[in-house]
């Protein structure tokens, strides 16, 4: 079973709102897959569909080979979920919640439990009511990581964690993957996806815009080049694939796509390069490019 999650052409309406509009999403076994999109893109809706909490209006969904709507209980034995907004019972302590969720998952290994509690520096004796958002998130993360399951679904899991805990979280996710587990995490924090994921699906307005490895996606984007040259060649703007050219004295700044980068280098080296920096685009830039038009929705 290579495909752990297979979502095809899924449609979901809430009244007149179209939350998912023919979404495709494939997650393979053993990968960390980031599900990226701006607020309101449909990430949470998708995760709730994968859990069988919401019913689809069209398309097909399969998770670990099962239909989540029909086989929710069996499926949930093999996955754990961390909601985007973790709401816990205010009168229960963090420790009580972890044990409750562990028991519902069919038992909890005490050593794993203690390990993750220590790792995330959680005080399990405090009432959930007095936890901050980040601490509630930790409770859910600890429960999910301590449950011995092959699939984790995480909805913006680090939005309340401080940088140190964020680093611990990354460690845990990689360790989980190296142990053979599969992770789907939604995010609109690009650095998180960059640091964590093997593959990315970008969603916008309920549709997948792009899917692939980070390398695949970079491939689609531009390389930013800044060069200081002896003499500015006159015909740079004529090279196909070179964009946003700016010349300031002997300083040339531009962006080049895959077709343009080779000819650009030839043209520049012909006139003598004194210094050159080229930058791989961050995921941020890939992202911006996809959403720069109409990013205000949601």
């Amino acid at each position: 079973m290579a495909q752990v999650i297979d979502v095809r052409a899924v449609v979901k309406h809430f009244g007149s709102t179209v939350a998912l509009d023919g979404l495709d999403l494939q997650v393979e076994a053993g990968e960390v897959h980031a599900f990226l999109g701006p607020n309101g893109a449909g990430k949470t809706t998708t995760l709730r569909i994968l859990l069988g909490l919401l019913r689809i209006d069209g398309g097909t969904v399969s998770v670990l080979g099962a239909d989540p709507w029909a086989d929710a209980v069996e499926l949930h034995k093999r996955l754990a979920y961390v909601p985007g907004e973790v709401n816990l019972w205010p009168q229960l302590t963090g420790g009580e919640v972890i044990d409750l969720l562990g028991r519902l998952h069919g038992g909890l290994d005490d050593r794993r439990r203690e390990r993750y509690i220590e790792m995330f520096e959680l005080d399990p004796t405090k009432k959930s009511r007095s936890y901050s958002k980040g601490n509630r998130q930790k409770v859910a993360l600890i429960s999910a990581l301590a449950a011995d399951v092959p699939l984790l679904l995480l909805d913006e899991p680090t939005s309340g964690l401080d940088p140190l805990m964020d680093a611990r979280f990354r460690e845990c996710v990689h360790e989980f993957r190296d142990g053979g587990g599969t992770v789907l995490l939604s995010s609109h924090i690009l650095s998180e996806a960059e640091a964590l994921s093997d593959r990315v699906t970008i969603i916008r307005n309920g549709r997948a815009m792009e899917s692939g490895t980070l390398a695949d996606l970079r491939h689609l984007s531009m390389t930013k080049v800044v060069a200081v040259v002896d003499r500015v060649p006159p015909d740079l703007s004529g090279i196909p694939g070179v964009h946003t050219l700016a010349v300031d004295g002997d300083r040339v700044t531009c962006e080049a796509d895959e077709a343009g980068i080779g000819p650009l280098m030839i043209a520049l080296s012909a006139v003598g390069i004194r210094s050159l920096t080229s930058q791989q685009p961050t995921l941020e830039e890939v992202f911006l490019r996809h959403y720069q038009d109409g990013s205000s929705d949601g």
Partner: protein
Amino acid sequence: MADSFAGTWTLTRLALRRDRILLPAWILGFAGMAGFSASATVGLYPDESQRVAAAEAVNAAGALVALYGRIYDPTSLGELSLFKLTAFGAALTAVLMVFVVIRHTRADEETGRLELMAAGRLGRSAPLAAALLVAFGASLVLAVLSALALIAAGLAVPGSFAFGFGWGFTGIAFAAVAGVCAQVTTGARSARGIALLTIAVSYAVRAVGDLAEGSWLSWLSPIGWMQQVRAYAGDRWWVLLLPIALAIVCVPLAFALRARRDLDAGLIGDRPGPARGRMGGVWGLAWRLQRGVFIAWCLGFAAFGLLLGSISDTVTGFLDSPQMQEFLMQLGGTQALADAFLATELSFAGIIVAAYGIAAASRLHTEEVDGHAEVLLSTPTSRVRWAVSHTMLALLGVAAILLIGGLTIGIGNALAMGDAGGIGGLLWAALARVPAAWVLTGVVLLVFGWLPRWVPAVWAVFVVALVIGEFGPLWDLPQWLMDVSPFVHSPRLPAVDSSNAGLVPLVVVTVALVTAGLLGWRRRDLQAH
């Protein structure tokens, strides 16, 4: 100082907007109930001798005095019209105001809504001030509208205002009490619980006080004050100063407590709890969430049961004029008077306990909108199993609480009469009230399954059923309307001529409602929170 109230006006408008349907509906309900009762009684007892007889019948019946209070002037039409609503209506007004105040203070704080707003320019006292303003305003509107409804029904003008303001000022007093409670605990549920407990205790204190005529105990209870205003029987206006005095003490206290604490903190702090949990799963969790309220109800019913049981013998040796018989018939009595009063008490208990069933089953709804269900249902927990856990606790809780009521009434009765022979019959009589209360639990399930946003509206169904059951015979409502209320179909045990024919249909209806609700729940989306 003024800074700490910054934003009060904005919050007041926000609160009024959020309550724009519920609050007017409740207020009109109160005014309508008062007006309806009055106009029905005016037609029923046109001449004074009939009224005197009926009033003396009420005063002679310990059970009625304990449940509703005394009639101070037997010739007064207003008092006879409203004796069931004086203390009871004041308590309901108090409950409404407690809900309003907690909803806009501690509940908002607990859910973090206030934190969001506090980031804007908002004084720390503003939410409390806004909640109190809304509750006080609502109480005054309720007072005036009720008075006008009573006047329209044909009752005396001064008495009507005394009565209306008696209700309204009781509302103000308990709104202020709720303002204090909201500072004490960190949970909205427990704050509300404490405030409601003060109402229950006030009600019980006045019940004991009223039984011994003229006892000082009645003066200890803010609900007793409403009765001591003696609307339509002398209109003692000065008594209205007492609830205002209570508010004048409580309001500054609430603000002082608020000024001393941080957002989210309480006077009773959160102590650390166990690091390990012992809950056995879905059922254990449901029990953990429900048990506090359940135990409080059991204790309340036990206390009231002992009280009512021990006075039921005062009913015997009763006057036997035909008017009185007729009046008691309208109250649901039969010839066997002691039994009739026990039956009245148990019917009352059966209606009140339905509120427990509604609240307990509504946990499904609050768990869903609070986002707890999402956490739970993403584990290998089936939807139905989870829904059944809370539903069963609601149904079993209703039965247990009623049985405790029946048992303690029986024990009280046995202690007073020196004869324990009636306990078995009273237990059975209490059990016979269970199915009617269950129907409302079933209604919660049905609405939860199919129209989840409307679960809180089941409380309106409850009030309608309560009003029909309590006042239907008095108002001479048409039979088809009476039949809508499940309580009307409960056997009137232990009165001898009662019929058990309604029990099976009530159980069948409950099962049907729960099943239909579960079917809807299985096939609908989880609600977003």
